[in-house]
């Protein structure tokens, strides 16, 4: 990717963070005609965008914050158009599919707990109905013929889907490059000040100036947000993924813990550990993931595992997104969330235009302000 000379460059928006949230937002800003610079860390950055599970997922989202369900469905519905736009620009197909997805249960107790979660979710005032239903073993088997006898049932949501997220990441970078967006790796932002109506971002390679700033640096938003009078309380979490060799297609629907990619590999994941170390791997966690996968789909028993990895989830303290604009530093925004793949369409097509206009649309994103973390200030 080209690194252009920055002398005397002035940008409309500096996007801090070159992961999926940052590049989706930057792409949307470029579509709005903004002159955008992306400030990224180097190759050794802790980057969820290279380790995620790649679901575009709806079911389960919104328990505890009903508007999050509607926000997620908005992105799920926008995803097809988003991927079409990317294909038009780059010729690359990110393999978005929305065949509906499953959450599978291996005991009556699990199924009962699952049904209770969905009931509590649907009973919230103002919740959007997203048509998730509980299915019996036989109903699941009609759609997933290879499930094992231990699968007692599960939940199905027709809005769930998945994508090739590494290709999505590459496609967005290719689109940005073609649009002439300036991408600056190894530009870790050390300080942000606002002087004479513009933001100055200090990096090891000099100062970048921009009229607006969008903080999209994942867990690092916790460090950056206070520099512009905002806050982003985070609690990073480690997940592990097991990947098999490429197999002939056998799984027509993604499962929340297991999916077959467009190129044939099966990804198995969804573990959660309190850790910020992306270099370690807890073997017992991988073993449990693999064991449950084989109970769900016994034909996986003789399949070779080719990779396992751990990655650090971007996670806000309550798990819901944070979108904010600064009162003390007008023009500074946070774009912060766990589900950077699912919400990519929203970030590109809804959040970016708001930032380009200079104000968040409260009717859409007011529930996601970090003010919710302060009981007195919320409301």
């Amino acid at each position, binding site marked *: 990717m080209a690194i252009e000379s920055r002398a005397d460059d002035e940008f409309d928006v500096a996007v801090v963070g070159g992961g999926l949230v940052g590049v989706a937002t930057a792409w949307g800003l470029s579509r709005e005609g903004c002159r955008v610079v992306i400030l990224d860390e180097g190759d050794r950055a802790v980057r969820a965008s290279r380790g995620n599970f790649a679901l575009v997922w709806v079911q389960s989202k919104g328990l505890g914050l009903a508007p999050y369900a509607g926000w997620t469905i908005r992105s799920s519905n926008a995803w097809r158009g988003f991927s079409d736009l990317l294909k038009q620009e780059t010729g690359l197909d990110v393999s978005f599919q929305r065949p509906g997805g499953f959450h599978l249960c291996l005991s009556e107790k699990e199924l009962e707990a699952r049904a209770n979660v969905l009931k509590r979710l649907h009973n919230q005032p103002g919740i959007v109905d997203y048509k998730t239903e509980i299915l019996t073993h036989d109903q699941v088997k009609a759609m997933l013929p290879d499930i094992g006898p231990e699968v007692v049932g599960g939940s199905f949501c027709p809005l769930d889907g998945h994508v090739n997220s590494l290709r999505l990441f590459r496609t967005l970078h290719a689109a940005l490059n073609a649009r002439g967006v300036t991408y600056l790796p190894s530009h870790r932002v050390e300080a942000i000040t606002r002087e004479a109506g513009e933001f100055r971002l200090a990096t090891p390679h000099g100062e970048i100036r921009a009229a607006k700033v969008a903080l999209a640096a994942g867990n690092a938003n916790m460090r950056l947000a206070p520099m512009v009078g905002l806050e982003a309380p985070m609690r990073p979490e480690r997940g592990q993924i097991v990947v098999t060799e490429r197999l002939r297609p056998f799984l027509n629907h993604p499962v929340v813990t297991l999916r077959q990619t467009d190129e*044939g590999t099966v990804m198995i994941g969804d573990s959660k550990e309190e850790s910020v170390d992306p270099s370690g791997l807890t073997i017992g966690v991988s073993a449990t993931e693999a064991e449950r996968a084989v109970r769900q789909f016994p034909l996986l028993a003789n399949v070779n595992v080719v990779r396992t990895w751990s990655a650090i989830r971007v996670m806000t303290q309550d798990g819901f997104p944070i979108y904010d604009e600064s009162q003390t530093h007008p023009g500074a925004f946070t774009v912060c969330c766990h589900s950077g793949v699912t919400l990519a369409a929203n970030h590109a097509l809804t959040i970016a235009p708001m930032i380009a206009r200079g104000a968040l649309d409260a009717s859409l994103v007011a529930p996601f302000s970090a003010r919710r973390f302060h009981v007195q200030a919320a409301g």
Partner: protein
Amino acid sequence: MFKRLAEKGPAISITVDGKPVTARAGDTVASALLGAGIDHCRTTPVTGAPRAPYCLMGVCFDCLVTVDGVGSRQGCLIPVREGMKVETQLGRREAGR
């Protein structure tokens, strides 16, 4: 394409896709395939391009074959045994086979 420098060692009988192939004790599966004139051992899972043993030292993973029913084994790291059943792999493996 390949010929042996010397026909040393006792003959070992294996099958490749059901057809008898004579190897030599000490051969790896990959070298036995090359010695028998089998010019590719698999096709790739994504594009279907043919692949043959290449590095012969466990690095390139191009010599993947099914050995005695276990898929995607590295042929260059497995010595032949009498009666071994080797199968070439076409594209993606079928799980549960």
